[in-house]
């Protein structure tokens, strides 16, 4: 079974994001970029399925500029066999991303597509589900456990009330939640080996997909600030403040 893993390069999760003074977006110049943490979990899961002998090949795909090569090399160092960069300098919206991924799926013919449930920049939580619908495939979103057997996959999902388990016929789309696995660190020999693994580039324009943006960002602003409160010395003082000042208990 072949697995396609879609990954996104985003501002590193530990960076304090700053809104640009002209409110056109957030500062991305000279900011550390990394693989979206949920995508790392997706790569790890695909590699584990390969190590278990369930997957035969893991292909990582990313859509973005030249620097996305670095992110794809990270996926190769973590154990992906091959990488594809769909090259564009445009910022694609999730609908456009899912249309591009559909094209890649048609070329690569995987039995499973693994994606992060959301990217930590746009926080949209859309791409996997959109891809599933466009392909006419079933989906297992927010996965915390994935089992594959007899051409089917059983996915345990993190839902608001607890956990839900569903069974999907393959091919299927799976999006990862935090507790699916703990991604490994790439070892130095694997980082070296990754440099020799194939990384194909496709120009976005060659795929013939309409990726025009459907939305406009009118402005990006700082959230309302919370003013720093006061320190209380004792529990009694805290209870007094909550009762008589904040009046919430």
């Amino acid at each position: 079974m072949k697995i396609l893993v879609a990954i996104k390069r985003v501002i590193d999760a530990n960076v304090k994001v700053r809104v640009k003074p002209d409110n056109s977006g957030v500062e991305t110049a000279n900011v550390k970029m990394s693989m979206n943490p949920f995508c790392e979990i997706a790569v790890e899961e695909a590699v584990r399925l390969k190590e278990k002998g369930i997957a035969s090949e893991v292909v990582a795909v990313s859509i973005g500029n030249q620097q996305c090569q670095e992110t794809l090399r990270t996926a190769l160092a973590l154990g992906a066999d091959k990488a594809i960069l769909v090259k564009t300098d445009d910022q694609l919206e999730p609908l456009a991303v899912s249309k591009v991924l559909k094209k890649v799926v048609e070329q690569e013919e995987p039995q499973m597509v693994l994606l992060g449930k959301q990217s930590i920049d746009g926080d949209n939580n859309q791409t996997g589900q959109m891809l599933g619908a466009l392909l006419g495939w079933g989906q297992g979103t927010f996965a915390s456990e994935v089992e594959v057997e007899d051409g089917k996959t059983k996915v345990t999902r993190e839902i608001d009330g607890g956990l839900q388990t569903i069974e999907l016929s393959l091919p299927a789309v799976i999006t990862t939640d935090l507790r699916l696995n703990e991604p490994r660190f790439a070892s130095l020999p694997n980082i070296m080996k990754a440099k020799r693994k194939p990384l194909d580039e496709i120009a976005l324009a060659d795929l013939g997909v309409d990726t025009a943006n459907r939305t406009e960002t009118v402005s990006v602003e700082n959230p309302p600030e919370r003013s720093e409160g006061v320190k209380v010395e004792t529990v009694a003082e805290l209870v007094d403040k909550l009762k008589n000042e904040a009046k919430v208990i």
Partner: protein
Amino acid sequence: MTTLVIAEHNNSELQASTYNTIAAAKQLSGETVVLVAGHNCESVAEQAAKAEGVDKVLLAQADFLEHLLAEDVEKAVMSQEGDYSHILAPASTFGKNMMPRISALLDVQQISDIISVESDDTFKRPVYAGNAIATVKSNDSKKVITVRATAFDALATEGGSATIENVDAGSHTPLSNYVSEELTKSERPDLGTAKVVVSGGRGMGNGENFEMLETLADKLGAAVGASRAAVDAGFVPNDYQVGQTGKIVAPELYIAVGISGAIQHLAGMKDSKVIVAINKDEEAPIFQVADYGLVEDLFKAVPELIDAL
């Protein structure tokens, strides 16, 4: 213009998030129609018909809609004949799961997790874990939107008298089948809508120590939540998680116990009215958003707090 709200429910009760979503729909022009798709869920349709602001309820029933799997809900929604300018659902795991499928099939770029309606085509939504608020204008002819429940005050649950119309439920897809569910049972209020939330972090040390927070929560009529660190460590189940990728809460009072306050956690609770932080590390970032901070060992402070209430 007409807005279709896809109801979140458990086949017997309309979830609170649906009322918040109806409130968001009322800020748009035109009528509000609520689709209740499910199994044996007439009572849910009756509740929706009584909700303030609802003009019509569509009831789509079929046995395969019992668990509201995304593929089946997609078919039920896509088989509706009305011409809707806006389709709304709560940005809960229910809405997040199925809504993008509908959006993709309509060839619309969904707007996720809106916190305000600026006009019929322009909305505000948090990005980067709430560290920035984007104002987004949709140029699609239809708008597909998920709504952050805590950002919209629910309208009255009684007083409305909308008509209920039975509609086509679509067809079951063999792509996906329900196996089982393991839902956390609790007598406490729902985390997403509780007036008071008591949350624990890594500082709790283990799952047993959460009993202390449960005692505190019961004194306050509160729900119990947790940081990602506490869930990852296995102290409490996943549905306790408050944060960027967990639940978003905005109670009257949020008490953070042994939580350092990573930005991903703050994203889920910083709209709370009053925030209390109890942490022995006075440098913990949680104190920067807390209205009242108590620098104290939680194992001393929490029992004292329980006694004082």
